[in-house]
């Protein structure tokens, strides 16, 4: 009889199952907020609804989406990665420098990726194996990787990549990552979407993903259940390294050269995208869909405030308030739950 019931449930409850996923409430709230913000700006200035603006919006949110995905992995494990922004700079500088020297773009990108992955492993080892506070460990790698970004081209921004690999190859690289469109949408968004889907799958459908939630929720219980905490932590830091590296390619393609300050502060944008989407900085909860909504909220705000002519100062101020408000909501909800538990 139970099996009958299971079968029935299987048929009727696919939608229910998705809606009932833990953390879905925060995601829905974030998407609702996104729609309200978008429509509100649209009503003030109709240009917000224009097709070209939507395309621009999708392209510029891609960077935040990728960085947010990487940071969300760490937030869910209860850690943080402050080195993401510097890794973006390192990736952009290494690939741009090599390309400006005439190295094949694929090789240049591979070298940048290897450097980022090494940083990710180092972060994971420091935090997972040597139990350094993640804030300190990644603060260190943040300075180190930024230092590498500076040193790659002798403390100067690079020349245009086209000077090394030629105009044709340079254009191809820039179009692939930034200026080109596929099916009417900028490639940047497609790239971000594919990476998002891969890591979404990894987090929600695989053993590694389950372990990431487990160590963020209760690391001792996870260890006693046979979860390899060190490996899982390293994997999470590798995800953020991959995301940072790809954002580095995108920034390199956008500028057509390497900028030593590329990706400055991005680690914090990643935290913001995550927490706006309901990823708890305390670990254990949150969905990557929320990060998607968070990155979109962020970009819509920036875009909308820009369109209606607000100054940069106002933009920062509004975004700051939104971030604090999102986390405040999380803390209040959590402490409310704890209160209930205690009184029982």
């Amino acid at each position, binding site marked *: 009889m*139970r*099996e009958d019931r*299971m079968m029935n449930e*299987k048929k009727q409850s696919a939608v229910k199952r998705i809606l*009932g996923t*833990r953390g879905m409430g925060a995601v829905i709230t974030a998407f609702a907020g996104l729609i309200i913000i978008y429509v509100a700006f649209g009503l003030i200035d109709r240009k917000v609804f224009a097709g070209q603006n939507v395309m621009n919006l999708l392209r510029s949110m891609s960077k935040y989406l990728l960085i947010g995905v990487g940071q969300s992995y760490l937030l869910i494990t209860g850690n943080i990665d402050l080195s993401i922004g510097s890794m973006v700079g390192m990736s952009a500088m290494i690939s741009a420098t090599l390309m400006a020297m005439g190295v094949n773009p694929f090789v240049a990108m591979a070298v940048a990726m290897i450097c980022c992955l090494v940083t990710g492993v180092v972060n994971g080892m420091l935090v997972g194996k040597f139990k350094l506070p993640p804030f300190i460990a990644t603060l260190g790698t943040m300075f180190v990787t930024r230092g590498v970004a500076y040193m790659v081209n002798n403390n100067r921004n690079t020349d245009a990549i086209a000077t090394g690999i030629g105009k044709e190859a340079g254009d191809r690289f820039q179009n692939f990552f930034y200026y080109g469109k596929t099916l009417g949408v900028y490639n940047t968004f497609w790239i971000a979407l594919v990476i998002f889907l891969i890591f979404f799958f990894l987090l929600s*459908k*695989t*053993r590694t*993903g*389950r*372990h990431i*939630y*487990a160590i*963020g*929720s*209760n690391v*001792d*219980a*996870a260890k*006693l*259940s*046979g*979860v390899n905490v060190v490996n899982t932590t390293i994997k999470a830091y590798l995800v953020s390294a991959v995301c940072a590296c790809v954002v580095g390619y995108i920034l390199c393609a956008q500028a057509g050269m390497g900028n030593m300050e590329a990706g400055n502060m991005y680690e914090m944008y990643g935290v913001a995208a995550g927490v706006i989407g309901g990823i708890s900085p305390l670990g*254990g*909860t949150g969905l990557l869909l929320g990060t998607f909504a968070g990155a979109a909220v962020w970009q819509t705000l920036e875009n909308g405030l820009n369109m209606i002519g607000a100054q940069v100062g106002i933009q920062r101020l509004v975004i700051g308030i939104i971030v604090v408000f999102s986390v405040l909501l999380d803390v209040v909800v959590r402490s409310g*739950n704890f209160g209930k538990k*205690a009184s*029982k």
Partner: protein
Amino acid sequence: MKVQNSCRGSKQKAGEKMGEVIVSMKDIVKTFPGVKALDHVNFELRSGEVMALLGENGAGKSTLMKILSGVYTKDSGTMTIFGTEYENLTPKQAQAVGVAIIHQELNMCRNLSVAENMFLGREKVNGIVLNDREMEAEAAKILGDLKIDIDPRQTVGDLPVSKQQMVEIAKALSIHAKILIMDEPTSSLTAKEIDELFRIIRQLKADGCGIVYISHRLEELKAIVDRVTIMRDGQYITDGNFKDMTMDQIIANMVGREIKEQFPRVSCPKGKKVFEVRNLNAGHLVRDINFSLYEGEIVGFAGLMGAGRTETTRAIFGVDPKTGGEIFLDGKEVKISCPMDAIKAGIVLAPEDRKKDGLCTKLSIRHNLALPNLDLICSKLGVISRKQEDDLCEKAVKDLLIKTPTVEVNAGNLSGGNQQKVVVGKWLARNSRVVIFDEPTRGIDVGAKVEIYNLMNQLKKQGIAVMFVSSEMPEVLGIADRVIVMCDGRITGEVMAKETTQNEVLKFATEFEQKKAVG
């Protein structure tokens, strides 16, 4: 390691035959630095039985079970599980052999679902994709077999504690555990939930599991226990069928020794009432507390761990919020809603956990002693007077005989006894009326203990009311004049120290509310 037969084979046999010995621990010795935690302890568990492991706090019950479940390693002795002798186990190996422990503090990932917790670390997968439906179906089957009504998809953190405990039991069964260790499983359950737990325990028993049951609630043993093993001070005392023993015999075996007069007591005339608590309520562990303290008297608070004594001191001192009750000092009501109120009124607390609540271990003795007295040694502008601070420290070191080269030493580097003196010293500069000591002698050596007793006596002679919380019965009976016994958040008895016995106090201390599940 002698391997006689495969563990899996013997495990199945154990399921079929009842009453077969499945765990045999002989001459187990375990030493921690400075303490012999287990001294040649014997322990035996048979399939299909509930074995109660009894003893006072610190008797070594938990240590023994941690060796069985692979958390600790033994120094010597033999441990045989399902006919195979094991030198030492890791927690994972112990699980594989079939030993599962259900901790007093539940160990679950609160953010994950029931099924996710049950299969954590051994998830079922199709290729690389998690097979949630299969795990949920299997979890539902295990829960269903135990007749536990929990949705496997529910988040564990949203379940009440009793249900979380059921999930831990189900998790243990899902790894085919045949030996279940339950440490105080009923401590946070209601009567109805205890009924439910006992039903499950009986079912596990019928399935041939061996269950080790650790509990301080002697009354509830009647409902489920088959045999008992009694330990005291790290030693095996006796075992036997529960039915063949009287409750008095069990208590006598648990307590054991006569009390020797190793406690300096000073007698002084009982003066006027200093302090009174009326109908104090604060959460589950402080319920309707009424008592008074008089000049020239030390009042001991006895009880088992978790009886609510520490919680009572915290509620009085204003650390935890009160839900009701009045506090009177010298006949006048005082309102205490935070520790500052209590300190200003003249009520001070030397808390239970020195390192966590009592001291800033990374600060010097000087800074620790000055911390609660900054209002006394600061000028109006808030600048600390070095001279007054020096005087205060000098006086405290001299009065309390704190053994240290200078007061600049970090408090954390002192010995336990000297740390405790600093904790007390913090309060001596203020003219306090009530001093509350919570477990002041825990973990300090005999000589230092006597110094702490002398200090309490000195306060008593000065007419300060002393409230003395301790789990060590000999010192409560030896130092206090009057003893108040608590159990389960209530005061269950009040006796004069000179006229009572340990057995009487222990009876009060185990006087749990009559719950339906008992008997």
